[in-house]
């Protein structure tokens, strides 16, 4: 059964010896990660929705070992390159969407910000090659009425 196959796969992964796991699950070559909204250069005000687009792969929960599926991570103003050998960081500039979310409402301070999506596997590692979106720049305007 396909389900048993998943278990076998999970067991096989767990079998890989401790520290030396070869992470980086292979991703389909035609997989594409992109922003549905906002677009590069867009100006926004206040809280705004970000919608994540993914083609030729599926979105699933973190922890689920389905083939060709992963979960979204949103990188805000991150300049460091992604380390393919480490789990995607978790902090205020690396937001995780491990419950399979495909959108989020974001509030950022006024100014220019960059946004980038990275797809992570069940254990939050980037795929091989990394599935990342274009890095877009948005401009958050001053709120109309100061509080």
């Amino acid at each position, binding site marked *: *059964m*396909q*389900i*048993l*196959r*998943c*278990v*076998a796969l*999970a*067991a*096989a*992964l*767990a*079998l890989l*010896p*401790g*520290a030396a*796991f070869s992470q980086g699950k292979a991703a389909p070559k035609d997989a594409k990660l992109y922003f549905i909204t906002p677009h590069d250069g867009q100006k926004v005000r206040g809280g705004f929705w970000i919608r994540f687009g993914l083609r030729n*792969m*599926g979105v*699933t*929960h*973190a*922890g*689920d070992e*389905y*083939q*060709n*599926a992963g979960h979204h991570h949103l990188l805000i103003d991150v300049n460091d390159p992604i380390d393919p050998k480490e*789990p995607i*960081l*978790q*902090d*205020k500039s690396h937001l*995780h*969407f*491990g*419950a*399979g979310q495909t959108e989020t409402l974001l*509030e950022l*301070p006024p100014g220019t910000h960059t946004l980038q999506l990275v797809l992570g596997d069940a*254990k*939050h590692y980037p795929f091989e090659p990394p599935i990342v979106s274009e890095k877009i720049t948005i401009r958050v305007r001053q709120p109309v009425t100061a509080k």
Partner: protein
Amino acid sequence: MGEIRNFRSGNNGDPPSHSVGPRRLAAIIVGDIASYSRLMQADEEGTHVRVKRIERDLIQPSIVEHHGSLVKTTGDGFIAIFDSPVEAVRCSIVIQQNLIGRNASLPKDTRIEYRIGVNLGDVIVEPDDVYGDGVNIATRIEGIAEPGQVFISGAIYEQIKHKVVCGYESLGDRKVKNITDPVRVYKVLPDADAVGRTRGRRENALIFLLGITLSVMAAGVLWYLLAQAPGRVGEQATGPTASPAASPAALPSPQPPPREAASQTPQPSPSAASSSPSPAPAPSQSAVQSATAVREPEMVAIRGGSFAMGSNDDPTERPVHQVTVKPFSIGKYPVTVQEWNECAAAKACGFTAVGKDDAPVSNVSWTDAQQYAAYLAQATKKAYRLPSEAEWEYAARGGTQTKYWWGDKLQPGMAGCKDCGDLAAEQPAKVGSFRSNPFGLHDMGGGVDQWVEDCWHKTYQGAPADGSAWSSGDCGAHVLRSGSWKNDSRYVRPSNRDGYDTNVRYPTHGFRVALSP
């Protein structure tokens, strides 16, 4: 199985029922346990407890996560409705996949396997039930599903076929009991590649492969434990395996538990917070630990008090507000691998952690942490729980109002974080490697992130002032405190807070327990 279950569950105190609830289109999931009567006959209480646990830990959270609502649970099943067919099917797959993991270590005849049917239909929704043809069809589809499978109706299939990356096997039009028109039924294959393969052969081959894999794993673990010199083990302490199938052979660790002696000394002096008016009842464990005694985390009694919670350093920490905390006890260290693995050995925690005994357990979700607290409370008959966010910050500040508990300037050797000084940037090999704060607590900042009881809110607007946990609102995410060895020094501040998905594990996330007096 196969009973129509849309009768009204007897609920007294209802208003007279001529006021019919609103009609709406909904994706309906009906799930039900295969061979429930046999399981109940074999072990009535055990089965009941396990079913309730599955409902609480898996089914309910999965439904909430996918924006559905649980209409009701029956003895052996449940009904849930969703606005979105995609979410309904995803939720069903998640439930089935998780059950595989739970069942993997059990003998076949004690496995709890659900059949799940999903249909899209116009239904009448009432607070405690849902009615309509659509529900009956979902029930019928569930009735013909194989245990462990998700079957969906044609209506659902049309909605999701291009959206959920799965294989679908058409089972053709099925005539179902008491429904006039035949219903088109599809079987969901979570792995898209599986379409059209023959099952029988694969099944056998895979069981065989799985058997081999598991035995190799068990052998590997045994070898690892026996052959490694105790001092070297810490080097490989990364990445606790989350697989529930992790071999039980890993449990009887032959290594001398280094912290055992410490945790057995009857009631460590509560240090700086001393003269506490409410000392936690001394554990008074017998010096000789019997095989059944539970290893309790070392606790420190904290005197209650009032403090200014929050800061202006980050929007999430505003507004600064006064909170009064009642007396409580909190773990001197984060929960360790050794402590966690007792829970895993008792099958009350979801996985066996790998790593040195006195390393903090990591890669735990909030739900995992709750399971440990529940296990500890049950085994000790004491009110163990996660600390509230206010309790955590109060304890972390240790009576100070400075940026860090030791002052306003970063100092090396005080906490484990990326830029906190030498050696601090590594995954903690041992709890308590850094200085304790004025309350005698270690690792309150840096080391591992720590779950607390509260649901995540982006600011303190509306937060309780009595030190209790803030449990209302969207609880799909809960609060993390402390920051980890991977974060920079901003995250080590006692007021720092972040939210993370409730059911998701991440390698830097751990927790510590609290105890009400």
